[in-house]
C-alpha cells in the first residue's frame, strides 16, 4: 500500500513539473477553478432569489451540498477523467502493452499516470465553500459527526471512482468510449442537486442501482441531519462497488490483445 501511495505522489510531482512548463495554463488554474465553482454557486443563489427552499433545502444547505461535491469532484476531474480519455486511445494503439509490462497493478497505473495538479486548487475551493456554508448555517454539530462526514466523503469519492472504472473498462470491448466523459458530466449534474428534488423512482435508482447518491448527497444530508440511517449504507455500497469494478476490470481487460509492433 505504501508503495502505491509513494508512486502516486511521485507521479503528482512529475505531473507538476510537466504542467509548470505551461506557465500560462498553470497560473490560470486557480482562477479557472474559482470560475467553475462560482458558476454553480451563482446559479444556486439566483434560484433561491425565487424560492425560499427547494424541497426542504435552504440556500446555504444547497451550497454545502455543492461544496461537498466539489471536494469529491476534485479527484474525478483531476485524476480519473484525463486518464479515462487516454484509456481508449491506449487500447486502440496498443500502448497499453507498456502499462501491462510494468511491475505494478495495471488498473492503478492506467487511472493515475496523469494527474492534473489543479486537484489541489479544486480541493481547496471545495473546502472553502463548505466552510462558508457552515458559517452561514451556524449548526451546532456533535464532534462525532465530523470524522464520519469525512469518511462519507472518502466513500463518495471511491463510489465515483468505481463507476469510472466500470465504464472505463468498457473500452476493452467497444474501444471508443468518447461518450464516457459526457456520461460522467451528467452524473455530476445529478450529484450537484439535492436528491429530494427528483421523483421517488429516480431517487431510488440513484441510490441503489447507480449509487450516485452516496457521492455528495448522503455526506451533506448526514451532516445536516436530513437522512436517518441511510448513511450506514455507504459503508456497504462502497466496498461492494469497488469489488464489482475490480471484477469488471479483470474480466474485460482479459480480452485485450496488444496491437503494437
Amino acid at each position, binding site marked *: 500500500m505504501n508503495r502505491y501511495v509513494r508512486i502516486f505522489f511521485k507521479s503528482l510531482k512529475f505531473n507538476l513539473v510537466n504542467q509548470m512548463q*505551461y506557465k*500560462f495554463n498553470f497560473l490560470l488554474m486557480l482562477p*479557472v477553478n474559482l470560475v467553475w465553482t462560482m458558476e454553480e454557486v451563482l446559479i444556486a443563489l439566483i*434560484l433561491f432569489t425565487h*424560492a425560499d427552499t427547494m424541497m426542504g433545502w435552504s440556500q446555504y444547505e444547497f451550497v454545502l451540498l455543492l461544496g461537498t461535491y466539489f471536494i469529491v469532484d476534485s479527484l474525478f476531474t483531476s485524476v480519473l477523467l484525463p486518464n479515462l480519455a487516454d484509456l481508449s486511445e491506449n487500447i486502440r494503439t496498443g500502448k497499453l502493452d507498456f502499462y501491462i509490462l510494468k511491475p505494478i497493478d495495471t488498473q492503478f497505473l492506467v487511472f493515475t499516470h496523469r494527474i492534473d495538479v489543479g486537484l489541489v486548487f479544486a480541493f481547496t475551493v471545495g473546502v472553502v465553500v463548505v466552510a462558508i456554508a457552515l458559517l452561514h448555517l451556524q449548526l451546532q454539530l456533535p464532534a462525532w459527526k465530523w470524522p464520519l462526514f469525512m469518511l462519507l466523503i472518502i466513500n463518495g469519492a471511491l463510489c465515483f471512482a468505481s463507476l469510472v472504472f466500470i465504464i472505463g473498462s468498457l473500452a476493452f470491448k467497444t474501444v471508443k468510449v468518447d461518450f464516457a466523459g*459526457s456520461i460522467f458530466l451528467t452524473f455530476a449534474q445529478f450529484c450537484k*442537486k439535492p436528491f429530494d428534488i427528483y421523483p421517488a423512482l*429516480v431517487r431510488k435508482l440513484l441510490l441503489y442501482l447507480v449509487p450516485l447518491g452516496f457521492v455528495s448527497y448522503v455526506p451533506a444530508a448526514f451532516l445536516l441531519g436530513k437522512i436517518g440511517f441511510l448513511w450506514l449504507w455507504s459503508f456497504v455500497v462502497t466496498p461492494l462497488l469497488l469489488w464489482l469494478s475490480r471484477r469488471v476490470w479483470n474480466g474485460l481487460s482479459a480480452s485485450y490483445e496488444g496491437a503494437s509492433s
Partner: protein
Amino acid sequence: MSKYLKALKLSSQASLAYNWNFFISTLIQILSLLITLFMWKAVFAAGGDIADYSYASMIVYIFVVNTVFELIGTNNTSARVSNDIRSGALGVWLLRPFPHFFSLLADVVGSKLPRLPALLVMNGAACFLFLYGHGAGALAEGGSRFDISAASVLMFLVFVLFSFLWNYLLDYLLGLVSFRADNPWILFYIKSHVTAVFCGLIIPLDLFPSWVRRILDWLPFKYYVYYPFQVLTGQTAWPEFLFNLVCFGMWLTAAALCTLVVWRTSIGRFAAAGG
C-alpha cells in the same frame, strides 16, 4: 464554392459513420435537460409563476434554448485550431488552395446538417412527453403563452444563423491564441462555462438580479439563446429586433476583424518542421 460543398459533403458522410455515438450523446443531453427541469420543478413547487414564467412555459424555454445551443455548437473548433497550430498540421492546410477558416467552417456545418432532423425530433418529443407527463393543463399552457408566427420563426432563424457564426468566430479566435501561448485550453474551458451560465441556458436572463442584467445588456451573451427565444415567441417588436440585429452584426464584425488581425500578425511566426 463547390470545393466547400465537397468538404461539407465529406464531413456529413463522416459524421454519419458513428450513429450510435450521436444517439447516446443526444440521450445524455436530454437526461441533463431533465435534471434542469427537476430543479425548476422544485423551485416552482411553492406554486404560482416566477416573473412571466409558469412551470409549463419554463419547460418549453429550457427545451428550446438547449436545442438552439446544440445547433450553434462548433464541435470543439477552438481545440482543433489549437491542435493544428501546436502540432504543425496547419502547415499542410497552408499549402491547400482554400483558407483554414472556411474549411473548418464547412466541416462543422457538414457534421451538423445530417443530425439536425434527429436532434429536432428527439428534443421535440422529449419536450412534448415532459409536458404531457405534467398533465393536459401543462401541455395546453406550454405553448399558449407564446405568440409564434411565420415572421417570428423567420426572425428566429436569422438570429440562430448569426449566433452560430458568432460562436464559430469566437471559438476560432480563441484557438488562434495558440500562436502565442503553448496550450491555452483553459481559455476554452472558461469560455464554455461562462457562456453556459450567462447566455440563459439554465436560468432565463430576465430572472437574474437587475444589476447582472444591466451588465449583460452590454454584452453579446444574450444573443446565443436567450434573445432568439424571445424572438421566436413573439416577445420582441420589429424595431427592437432590428436594433438587436444591428448590435449583433457589429459584434460579429468586431470578432471577424479581430480574427483577421490575429491571423495576419501571427501566421508569420508560425513554423512547422518534419514531414
